[in-house]
């Protein structure tokens, strides 16, 4: 199991580094012609509100660009680790109350523990609000849930695990700005508002002043297995005997 996980991690890193290298080569030829991509910066700041397994993930993106982003739509592309998930039906209920348009390509099982769950891709579509000259802001708050984690030994580990939510990628789709010069830089991602087709999106440079947010999730203590096993089976066996004795005493005419 562990070997398999490691290998898939390595493959993931390998493919993503290939992608990064490939995307480095493309702009070289077009370098200064698409300012929307090359001169726009996205600063991502986020917070996890509340405590426990059910929390709110607040993401603020500050965009600064020489171009006018008034006609643009922002795509916040999240990759959640296996320890966390978004609940699509909950996000759907949130829409009438100001929740964002979103697309989650996978079916999500809300019951499975972390070690049986996949990474989750989620796309949120948000309109930027102008802040001041050349700066726009995007604000999304969505509920995020955390999964049960594998129980572990309390003597060698702390009885909690951290689930780190990496910063999202930010992409733009604009009507008036960009134009043909930007087309070679575009990448295909699901279309708004609900991801039925693939559209062209322009990736922007993303940075942050803060580290990825982390949730701390309590886990069970396997050191107690003997005690729990013994107590539980004794209690259930004792209860079974007591009920049988009660039945034996009961006279049926």
């Amino acid at each position: 199991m562990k070997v398999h996980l490691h290998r898939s991690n390595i493959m993931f890193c390998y493919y993503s580094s290939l992608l990064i290298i490939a995307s480095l080569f493309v702009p070289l030829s077009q370098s200064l012609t698409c300012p929307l991509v090359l001169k726009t910066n996205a600063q991502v700041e986020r917070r996890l509100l509340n405590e426990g397994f059910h929390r709110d993930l607040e993401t603020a993106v500050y965009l600064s660009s020489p171009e006018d982003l008034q006609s643009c739509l922002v795509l916040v592309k999240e990759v959640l680790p296996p320890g966390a998930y978004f609940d699509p039906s909950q996000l759907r209920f949130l829409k009438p109350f100001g929740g964002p348009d979103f697309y989650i390509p996978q079916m999500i099982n809300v019951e499975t523990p972390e070690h049986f769950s996949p990474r989750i891709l989620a796309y949120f579509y948000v309109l930027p609000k102008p802040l001041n000259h050349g700066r726009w802001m995007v604000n999304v708050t969505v509920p995020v849930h955390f999964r049960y984690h594998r129980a572990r030994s309390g003597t060698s580990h702390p009885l909690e695990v951290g689930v780190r939510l990496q910063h999202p990628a930010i992409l733009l789709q604009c009507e008036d700005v960009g134009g043909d010069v930007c087309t070679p830089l575009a990448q295909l991602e699901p279309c708004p508002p609900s991801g039925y087709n693939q559209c062209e999106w322009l990736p922007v440079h993303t940075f942050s002043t803060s580290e990825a947010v982390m949730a701390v999730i309590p886990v069970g203590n396997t050191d107690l297995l003997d005690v729990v096993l013994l107590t539980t089976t004794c209690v259930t066996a004792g209860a079974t005997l007591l009920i049988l004795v009660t039945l034996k005493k009961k006279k049926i005419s």
Partner: protein
Amino acid sequence: MESIKKARNRLRLYPKLIVECGPQATEYARCVALRDNVMKGDCAKEFEAFKVCVQEAAKRMKTRLMALGGRGSRFGSTETIQIHLFLGFVIRFMFIVYGEHHDKTNVLKYTDVDYHVFTDAASEVAQGGSPFDRHTYRYTPFLAWILLPNVYSHFIFGKILFSLLDCIASKLIYQLLLLDGQSKDTAVKCSFLWLYNPLVIGVSTRGSAEAIMAVLVLMTLYFMRLRLALLAGFSLGISIHFKLYPVIYCFPLYVSLTSHHLQDSIWRQILPNRSKLRLVIGTAISFFGLTGLGFFMYGEQYIEEAFLYHLSRTDTRHNFSIYFYLLYIGADYYIPGLNLATFGPQLLLIIVLGFKFSNRLDVPFALFTQTVVFVTFNKVITSQYFLWYLLLLPLIVSRLTMTSSKAILLTVLWIAAQVSWLLPAYLLEFHAVNAFVPIWLESIAFFSCNVGILMAVISSYMVVPTIHHHNSRKNR
């Protein structure tokens, strides 16, 4: 409570009445016992003689007969129960309307997530697709069919249907109690345990389909009481098709169809007779018919989602079950005999209870205790499961010789054990406090509480002399 006490006092006099009419009773009992399959009117002459004798004896003792009373005494109650059924429906309708309003204005929903799943599945069906195209739809396809009006007419159709079924269930409880020889007053009051139960009202108006199960299980008992074994089998088969758990009822229901004079031999109890065969055939036809139809229409996906998923489901998240923490921390370990240790007590007790109370007049009690054991000893318990035995509680409550203060104490204990479980669960879930051990201890407390209540209920259960019930049946 007063009327229950009165009824109980009256019941206590019954043996005396019967002793007074010894010869007539023996005559009648002999007539009934000689027939393998007693039909209405078979022993009318003997019964009439016995009835007149008992009525005269009752007059002498200045008591009133309950089941033996004239037909006229029941007409008044029909109105009372109808008023209450109507009121129960109106209350539910108000909750449904409130829920609609609440859901439009609040982020936290009143409507159960499952109800949206049902409705989505129904719209898949409406578009000519399979209900299983809706992810997480893990029920019989016919539930989606029944709820098609959710798509065609209004979203709240299903909730109204469930509320109506709740009222039908209450009416069935009432009828069953009358057949059991209870007075109209007692029957009405016992049916309140379902009709006005806040848990039941909440579950149905939030859109859980438990009311369907309630009606199917009660129909089974009702047909059993009327000795319509084939129809009882049909209802039982449908209920097993809808949710697997009533399969535990097969055994006591089957054994209960043994003729009385043969009940002392275990071999005879297992051997089939005509009414047993009817029950088995009815169950098999409806269960395999519906399941086969579902398989024919929706293929393996149906079997996988509706049956195999429930069997292989391992949800280790915290719940009321005593096994929760063991299954969570033991998930990565091979513990020999763990399945036997968790499944064994549940199975053993279900069989023993089913056998012990398999007399046809005690069958509701067998079903009740079996369900309590099934839920209490289960590996996963959610509060919806409590409805499965709360449904049968009204049928047996009038047979418990328990003081009202003890009954109240046990009820308070049951609720308190749940509430105190909620505190560590809340701290874990919403404050990330490592409260697994307290939750486990609370689950042991809740388990012990349930076992204690079950033992108290078994001890105080009153087995009514068989002969009295034949009378009440005859006089329906």
